[in-house]
């Protein structure tokens, strides 16, 4: 190994015996355009070696280089006084009060999950956990945001089952509670499921560590699992479209997870950080050693030199190319302070983990790779990480979508037959029905901090030793983004914020996962740009900056893109855990009040999808200022202890939201008697998905205060009914008909749908 002082800058790079010659085909196979290749040659001042080509290919993939999204992402607001770490690190970090900081981020594992659902989803959880604990934070909760095709398809049920098991087995084993998330089923995701995992981690503010290779001469150590041939070029694979034959041929690009090693890594990493013996630590995630080493060097403005023969490998004969690009899971790159390597090793040995010195930090700004002392790659680090070309493309809305939006929906405003039957069909639709079948497979209570478990508007984790808690939610209705991306993205933001205020949390910051199709297509780029603009506007209005996230493009199968799905992961702070508001009604005789206004809108609704198999119309209008007032109204009611429950209206409309509020977790249901006086046809009134509505319940003695607070914020509020005993049933009366059902009927419809759909699968497969 050459000296760490960086005296040797021009190590001659030799072509390795056995490496293929660089041809235009090889360049294209690496996902690089001709222009990009020319740029690489200019940076290098020569033709790259095969190893160098592989390194550029991974770092300049969409997954690592954000080449088609970077310019758009710059439009998002990223700062606020409470933001400690914005985008660009392993995870964003915010100040949540009482000396605590919250690290949080969402990440996608869509492509691997489409090919191998169990491992794809499991490793997605593993990756996001590492992003959190490498910031010095202990992971305290995970959420997952999932999209699949319709459950009528056997293939979809296989994917759904595998993804849920994968997430469950991994998170359960590591011991991180799952506190929520969301799932939707729609033919728009057939063949290309979405698997986004979000993780929250807590630390004392002073425990924050960043992933940078600082301190020239410090030692780079590979920690954790050995490097194998799995997942080579996963980052490049994630930046391509899937095709029918992706299934078999892509399987070697999917990694295999080992949650047990992850748990050891987690404990060891937090101990390492606490010891002060290391200056930086990063997950070897997408693009493996290559990205972790070059990004850490880039952030510190330093260089790195690594000897490939020192990297612990799983099999003999691995080339530098393979070692550099492997995405074997549960590996970390650690920068140990010179002279404290043994301290690092002792901590790792306690946790039965391997550690190997593989290189050092240099001052020459080069990303230099040696094989048995001979340089096989020598690249300037900065252009590698920051020199990836970024593109601004032309975005044009497709006429197909314009037509869908202009669809005449008037015939659908009239109910087909019995309202109660339609209501029950909607309540039992997999998109509305309880997701209990999923979260009963996830440990939700480990770590004894889960104050609100999955199934509510948001999950809540208390911060032990304080009166505070953190609420988190993920939201996005892809159909609405598909029909009108800017509006759809605003709705995703608005819904997320409503979900937080319903539990009593102040919306604080956002992580986002932009799941889109191929950005080289102008109508997809249009969706991406519009969605980012909508999100940016809502972030500004709600004062919720974006602190990081993930971009997953090329979500297409055989040329068909998924619905554009910019998943919003939003976190909020609750100052007093005693003031958490439940979603379910709490007491017979309480008054039910609707905040917001019912509308005549039906576009993009679940009602249209299940009754007419339609995804059409204009999404409901969303007024961000009105949403903001609504948020403040609910928070004030919560703060003054005037409401006993709060629940957001979303998929399935007002009728389904009311049903959810009477059912609760199914243990102690109530009844409700509701009268809706609006001059609106029953279908949009009961099942429309108009925005800006929250149902609250209160003691009759608090009604006056509730109405006064709403009025103060200029939010419409109207008493629509009262809570009754479960034995009195569930009734909603409108001007043109009513919905009426017993609680046992509601309960079986709502709670048993998913499990019976999935049990049939097991029996028939």
């Amino acid at each position, binding site marked *: 190994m050459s000296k760490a002082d960086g005296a040797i800058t021009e190590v001659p790079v030799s072509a390795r015996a056995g490496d293929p010659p660089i041809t235009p085909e090889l360049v294209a196979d690496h996902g690089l355009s001709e222009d990009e290749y020319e740029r690489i040659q200019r940076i290098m001042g020569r033709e790259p070696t095969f190893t160098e080509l592989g390194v550029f290919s991974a770092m300049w993939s969409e997954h690592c280089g954000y080449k088609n999204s970077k310019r758009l992402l710059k439009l998002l607001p990223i700062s606020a006084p409470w933001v400690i770490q914005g985008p660009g690190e392993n995870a964003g970090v915010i100040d949540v009060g009482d000396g605590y900081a919250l690290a949080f981020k969402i990440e996608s594992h869509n492509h691997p999950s489409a090919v191998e659902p169990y491992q794809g989803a499991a490793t997605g959880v593993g990756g996001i956990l590492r992003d959190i604990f490498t910031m010095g934070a202990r992971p305290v909760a995970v959420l997952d945001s999932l999209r699949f095709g319709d459950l009528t398809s056997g293939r979809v049920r296989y994917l759904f089952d595998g993804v849920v098991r994968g997430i469950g087995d991994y998170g359960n*084993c590591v*011991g991180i509670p799952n506190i929520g998330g969301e799932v939707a089923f729609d033919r728009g995701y057939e063949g290309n499921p979405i698997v986004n995992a979000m993780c929250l981690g807590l630390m004392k503010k002073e425990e924050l560590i960043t992933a940078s290779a600082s301190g020239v001469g410090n030692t780079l150590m590979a920690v954790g699992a050995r490097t194998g041939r799995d997942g080579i070029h996963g980052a490049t694979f994630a930046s391509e479209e899937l095709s029918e034959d992706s299934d078999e041929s892509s399987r070697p690009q999917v990694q295999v997870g080992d949650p*047990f090693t992850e748990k050891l890594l987690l404990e060891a990493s937090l101990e390492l950080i606490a010891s002060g013996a290391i200056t930086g630590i990063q997950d070897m995630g997408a693009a493996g050693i290559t990205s972790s080493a070059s990004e850490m060097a880039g952030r510190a403005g330093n260089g790195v030199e690594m000897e490939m023969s020192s990297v612990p490998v799983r099999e003999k004969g691995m080339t530098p190319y393979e070692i550099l690009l492997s995405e074997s899971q549960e590996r970390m790159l650690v920068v140990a302070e010179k002279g404290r390597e043994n301290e690092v090793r002792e901590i790792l040995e306690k946790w039965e983990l391997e550690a190997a010195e593989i290189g050092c930090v240099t001052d020459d700004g080069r990303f230099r790779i040696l094989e048995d002392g001979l340089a096989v790659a020598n690249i300037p680090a900065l252009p590698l990480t920051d020199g990836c070309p970024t593109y601004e493309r032309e975005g044009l809305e497709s006429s197909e979508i314009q037509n869908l939006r202009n669809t005449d929906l008037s015939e659908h405003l009239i109910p087909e037959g019995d309202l109660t039957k339609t209501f029950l069909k909607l309540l039992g639709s997999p998109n509305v029905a309880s997701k209990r079948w999923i979260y009963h*497979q996830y440990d939700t209570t480990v770590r004894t901090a889960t104050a609100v478990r999955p199934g509510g508007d948001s999950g809540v984790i208390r911060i032990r030793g304080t009166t505070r808690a953190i609420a988190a939610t993920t939201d996005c209705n892809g159909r609405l983004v598909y029909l009108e991306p800017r509006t759809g993205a605003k709705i995703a933001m608005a819904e997320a914020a409503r979900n937080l205020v319903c539990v009593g949390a102040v919306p604080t910051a956002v992580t986002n996962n932009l799941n889109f199709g191929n950005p080289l297509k102008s109508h997809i780029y249009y969706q991406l740009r519009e969605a980012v603009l909508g999100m940016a506007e809502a972030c500004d209005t709600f004062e919720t900056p974006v602190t990081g996230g993930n971009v997953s493009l090329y979500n297409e199968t055989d040329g068909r893109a998924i619905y554009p799905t910019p998943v919003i992961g939003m976190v909020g702070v609750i100052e007093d855990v005693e003031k958490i508001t439940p979603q379910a009604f709490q007491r017979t005789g309480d008054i039910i009040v609707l905040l917001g206004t019912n509308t005549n809108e039906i576009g993009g609704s679940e009602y249209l999808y299940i009754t007419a198999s339609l995804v059409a119309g204009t999404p409901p209008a969303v007024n961000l200022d009105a949403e903001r007032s609504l948020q403040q109204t609910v928070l004030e009611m919560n703060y003054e202890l005037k409401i006993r429950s709060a629940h957001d209206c979303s998929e399935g409309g007002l009728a389904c939201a009311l049903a959810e509020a009477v059912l609760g977790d199914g243990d102690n249901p109530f009844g409700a008697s509701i009268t809706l006086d609006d001059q609106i046809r029953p279908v949009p009134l009961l099942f429309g998905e108009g925005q800006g509505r929250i149902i609250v319940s209160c003691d009759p003695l608090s009604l006056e205060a509730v109405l006064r607070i709403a009025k103060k914020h200029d939010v419409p509020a109207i008493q629509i009914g009262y809570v009754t005993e479960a034995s009195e049933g569930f009734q909603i009366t409108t001007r043109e008909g009513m919905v009426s059902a017993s609680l046992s009927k509601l309960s079986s419809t709502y709670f048993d749908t998913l499990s019976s759909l999935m049990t049939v699968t*097991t029996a028939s497969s």
Partner: protein
Amino acid sequence: MRAAVVTFPGSNCDYDLYKAIQQVGGEASFVWHRERGLESYDAVLLPGGFSYGDYLRAGAIARMSPIMEDVVEFANNGGAVLGICNGFQILCEAGLLPGALVRNASLSFQSKDVRLRVERTDTLFTTGYTLGQTLRVPIAHGEGNYEADQRTLEQLETEGRVVFRYVDQAGETTEDANPNGSWHNIAGITNATGNVLGMMPHPERSMEQLLGSVDGVALFTSLGSNLAMLTN
């Protein structure tokens, strides 16, 4: 009460158990599985989690850990040993409790609140409950289906060693109330001398109303006060 919380690689409920002991006024210490010696403790607690990733079989590798020799000796000398979830699995693997915990009948992980009926109130761990009391406690396991041969089951029943059973809201041992397929709805058992308790549900997660239930508190206060009486 001085309680040792044994941490194996992959334990993940050790912290929760530690806090539960502290909450009832006990003194808890983490003991790493490679350490030796438990003489200075009044109780030994084996936490839940996935020791060694549950690879091979839940608890099968952990029971080979150096500390387990001491745990067995501690139990054989009459010391109070509590194994929860993975801890219960390890106690069965180590032969301190009979039977085995196999894959849930549903073949999937089950995480939810269940109801338990207290069957014995004269053990070190349950004097704070009333006989037949129904508790609400979470479970979170994939392998909690209690199995034993017919003779062992009969022995457990006749000797009254079943301490907790899964029941419904009305307190009945129905099939629907059984979350994992355990024989006789068994959720927790003791050894013949009553000083070793293994249970799948997590009483350490039912310590605060904020988190859903306080029904686990009496288990730890029972243990604390009974051990205090024994030492005095």
